[in-house]
């Protein structure tokens, strides 16, 4: 668990981060969202001490992060930045092996870990291990960036706008990959973005920042139904807030016993997607199916509409 306690950062007279406190849960994805200049990146960079706080402290599993040299702390925390930041003069393999080598792992262990990560990130070792970053596509470079950050099995992964440079299709794929990776390794992820859709899609918790202050830190649904500040409503958007709320629940979660002659929707689809499919087909209900296509129950239009209202 990461405890951020009364953290501030001032440069001269301007305060970039202003007295922020938050508890980040283990094994969850926390997204810090805000406009540019809101201090979200600075807050993230204070967790691994790339920026030293002016006031306050960060506890990692109860231990003050300043109790060890900064570079040793950073080797235990994964770090991914926008545009991947891969080392252009090193191969994919060497890039991924960076932190294990800094930690002095033996060669066999490093090779095994690199091979495992290449497989997890769908990069064929024969083809990509010896490739240089410029020989990869944007999506592949981004995957190598995340693989490199996870190489030494860190408990915490910090990501600063990791998908900002990707086009929409590759970006969606990268987001799904991140969710899968997080489930697989149980990593605690803290991710910074300016994209509210990304925040709602990925975040177990979302922190909204503006002008250095933390306005609200809550589950995504709570941001919609109980915004703590008008700025939070503006960020989440008023026009389609019901749709956003629906996008937070999956069809599988709402499936009730029963048969439906309506369209088939996968249980991982959001209620928003299910509703859209039902509108498209003119149906009053949809059949929820699992990955193998077996029926899991049905969702009705009425149940979805009820779910789109704040309680």
């Amino acid at each position: 668990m990461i405890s951020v306690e009364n953290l501030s950062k001032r440069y001269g007279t301007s305060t970039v981060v202003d007295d922020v406190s938050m508890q980040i849960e283990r094994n969850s994805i926390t997204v810090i969202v805000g406009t540019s200049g809101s201090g979200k990146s600075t807050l993230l960079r204070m967790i691994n001490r790339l920026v030293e706080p002016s006031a306050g402290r960060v506890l990692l599993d109860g231990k003050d992060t300043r109790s060890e040299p900064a570079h040793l702390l950073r080797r235990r925390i994964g770090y991914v930045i926008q545009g991947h930041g891969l080392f252009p003069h090193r191969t994919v393999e060497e890039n991924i092996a960076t932190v294990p080598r800094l930690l002095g792992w033996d060669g066999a262990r490093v090779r095994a870990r690199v091979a495992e990560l290449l497989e997890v990130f769908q990069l064929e070792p024969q083809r990509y291990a010896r490739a240089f970053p410029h020989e990869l596509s944007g999506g592949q470079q981004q995957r190598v960036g995340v693989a490199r950050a996870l190489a030494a099995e860190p408990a915490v992964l910090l990501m600063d706008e990791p998908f900002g440079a990707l086009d929409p299709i590759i970006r969606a794929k990268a987001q799904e990959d991140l969710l899968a990776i997080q489930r697989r390794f149980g990593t605690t992820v803290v991710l910074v973005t300016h994209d509210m859709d990304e925040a709602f899609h990925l975040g177990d918790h979302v922190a909204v920042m503006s002008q250095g202050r933390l306005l609200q830190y809550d589950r995504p649904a709570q941001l919609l139904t109980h915004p703590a500040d008008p700025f939070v409503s503006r960020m989440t958007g008023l026009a389609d807030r019901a749709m956003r709320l629906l996008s937070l629940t999956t069809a599988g979660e709402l499936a009730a016993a029963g048969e439906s002659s309506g369209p088939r929707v996968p249980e991982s689809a959001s209620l928003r997607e299910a509703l859209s499919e039902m509108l498209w087909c003119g149906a009053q209900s949809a059949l929820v199916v699992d990955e193998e296509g077996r029926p899991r129950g049905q969702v009705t239009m009425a149940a979805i509409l009820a779910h789109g209202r704040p309680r």
Partner: protein
Amino acid sequence: MSAPQPLPLEVPAAAGRPLARLDRLGSLLTLCATAALLSTPFMLVKANRIVPGVPRSLFESLPHGGALGCLMLLALAGGIAVTVQNARLRLGAALAGVIAISVASGCAARALTPAGNQVIRVAAGPAFWVLLGCLALLCTDAVTRLRPPPARRVALLGLFLIASLLLLSTGLFDQLSVMREYQVNHERFADELRQHVLLALGSLGAAVAVGLPLGILCHRVPRLRAGILGTLNVVQTIPAIALFGILMAPLGALAVAVPFAARLGIRGIGAAPAALALFLYSLLPIVANTVLGLQRVSCQAVDAALGMGMTAAQTLGRIELPLALPVILTGIRVVLVQNIGMVTVAALIGGGGLGTFVFQGIGQTAIDLVLLGAIPIVVLAFSAAVLLDALVEVLNRGRR
């Protein structure tokens, strides 16, 4: 023939006009060479080493069979340079031309020197030098068109140097005036060559040892950058002779005050001020290119390196310097070529080097002695440039 014919989108502009198909550079160089061959002597025969020579044309210098053979080879090279576009063929023809005029000059020197006469000097004339220049330009043009990979360029250079040395060692050129000067000075030649290379490389080494840290400092502390680069810029503008003069007084005083320094060879004149001046000139390109190279390193790579737990020193040594290396090496290339040329002037204050022959030759109006110094300097500078260019290109591969 059912396959569709490709549309003739681009009709070669020269298709109908044979003149437009002629190679421009080749035609120009062939014209120059022909004019020189017709209007200026191929060889000069001097009664002794300092009087002006009596002109001798190609046919007056060689037995007619040899002269005709040489002329035909040259005509062939000219023809290929004008009409053929194949770069390999052009290179081969130009090289054959170089060999032809070299062998011709060596044979002519033998033929024109009366047996046993040690006073008479036979030197290459203007036509020879113009021909050599034109053929060398054709060679470099052909090599540029071939765009050989770095390793092959270095191999070509090595081959050229070895072939030249072998040709010289056959004794074919021993009657040429430059080689006569070499025979008189051959012990000193080795020493001065060594001194020349030592001065050029030593001052470069010292400049790298000081300039690299200075460049890193400039990069890290932007406030120092303007001051340091400005100072080095001013040093760069001082003419070499003036800098030697400026250094003479303090170094002379140092030698008097500290006998140990004098024993090390530090004096107001000689190699010490020369090396120091070259070192000062070398600093600016190395510091400036180090700063430029470090600035060009992607700040994301540096951020990632620090974020993953590299210390500042590890980031510098493993990420920043390797990525800046091609630019730093470009600075080193500039310095090395510049130094090889500038060491020549060091001879003026007793610093030694091949410049000794150049200035002695000027003093004695013995042009062949000047050439004995100047030709190796050109070859050294050219070789250094080819080697370091190849190194920079190799390092630039696989990284963007």
